């Protein structure tokens, strides 16, 4: 039996849990919607303007950095598996070069102020 079948079953159970809970809620919870209740919450002030208003592009910077660096971790895991085999010290050097280049990128990002908030 493949462990993935269990995973699939767990996912199914999880969804079942959600559905069941929502069913219970539908049975038990009251429903009395009013206009005021359904209004978007704005700390007591009426909502004004688009929801984009405060969106900060700076968040994307971290997305970039993440995609740049974290995806490279993809190579670390396979390497970690085989390094104690035939590869030895040379491969250690190679991975050091690999990570070193990544670090240069990180330093570069830092120098160009990507990691400064203000």
């Amino acid at each position, binding site marked *: *039996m493949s462990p993935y079948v269990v995973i699939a079953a767990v996912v199914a159970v*999880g969804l079942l849990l959600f559905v069941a809970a929502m069913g219970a809620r539908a049975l038990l919870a009251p429903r009395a919607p009013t206009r005021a*209740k359904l209004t978007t919450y704005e700390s007591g002030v009426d909502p004004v303007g688009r929801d984009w208003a405060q969106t900060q592009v700076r968040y994307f910077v971290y997305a970039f950095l993440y995609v740049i660096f974290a995806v490279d971790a993809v190579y670390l895991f396979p390497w970690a598996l085989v390094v104690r085999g035939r590869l030895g010290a040379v491969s250690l050097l190679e991975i050091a070069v690999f990570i070193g280049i990544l670090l240069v990128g990180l330093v570069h990002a830092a120098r160009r102020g990507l990691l400064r908030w203000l």
Partner: protein
Amino acid sequence: MSDAVEVTLRAVGVLAAFLVLPLLVGQTEHKVMAHMQGRLGPMYAGGFHGWAQLVADGVKFVQKEDITPAAADRRIFRFAPAVALVPYLVALAAIPLSPDVVAADLPASAVFVLAATAVGILGTLMAGWASANKYSLLGAMRAAAQLLSYELPMVLAVASVCLAAGSLSLSGIAAAWSPWWLVFQLPGAVVFLVAAVAELQRPPFDMPVADSEIVFGAYTEYTGLRFAFFLLGEYAGIVVMSLLFAVLYLGGWRGLFSDQLGWLWTLLKGFCIAVVVIWLRVAWPRLREDQLQRLAWLVLVPLALAQLAITGVWVVTTA
């Protein structure tokens, strides 16, 4: 026993653990925080030291009205809690409590658990986006940025453990564990713990839900049971991360009578870590968003890389 039955049993077992352990952690949090702050905490529900407080909370949540704001993207808004919660359930299924007590023994379970927990952030993003609320969106953005930033040091730290063990499987890692790891994997362990707390958006890394700034972040518009699901997700996250830490860095089921009581050891170690996570909440004030990001990129990432280098050298020299 036929396969179908076994699968069902395993799944239900995971579900049971998933429902019980977070409650345990939640109750612990109530009490531990209370005592750290010199108060009692819940004392009435259920009688003995308010043990049923969280159950009562649950019942209350079920009975509360569930509001979907008129401006919200209804389907996504309603489905988001499930997306936030189920990944932790899945992750829990792959964590071994002992070589035998494991629902799904995947070949690359370390990677799998990391991947599964990362999916949870989608729920937060969906919630923030679908709420059509500035605070929600802002909170979701913060959450996403935070998760992205801390995912990297965490992955690197785990990579270093995998490297030390020469295995991607959690069982394999725990099997390869030796007490020496407590020393030379220490930087990685610290990185992992910090990153885990940050991923869970727990204080001191709770900017995404910072109530003094953005009401309650992505969950601002949620009420009733759906809101409870997000809360449950947070505590389930603590459970998953603590157990993961226990398996990765503390040897999991290693201990006295590990053949019989291994699962207990794992739970115990995980519980200790959970207490640490709770303690962090009490002990530290909230970081600013920029401090948080700088910590990730300029401290944790280099530290994790250094850990990787140490492990690499160690592995190559001892192999």
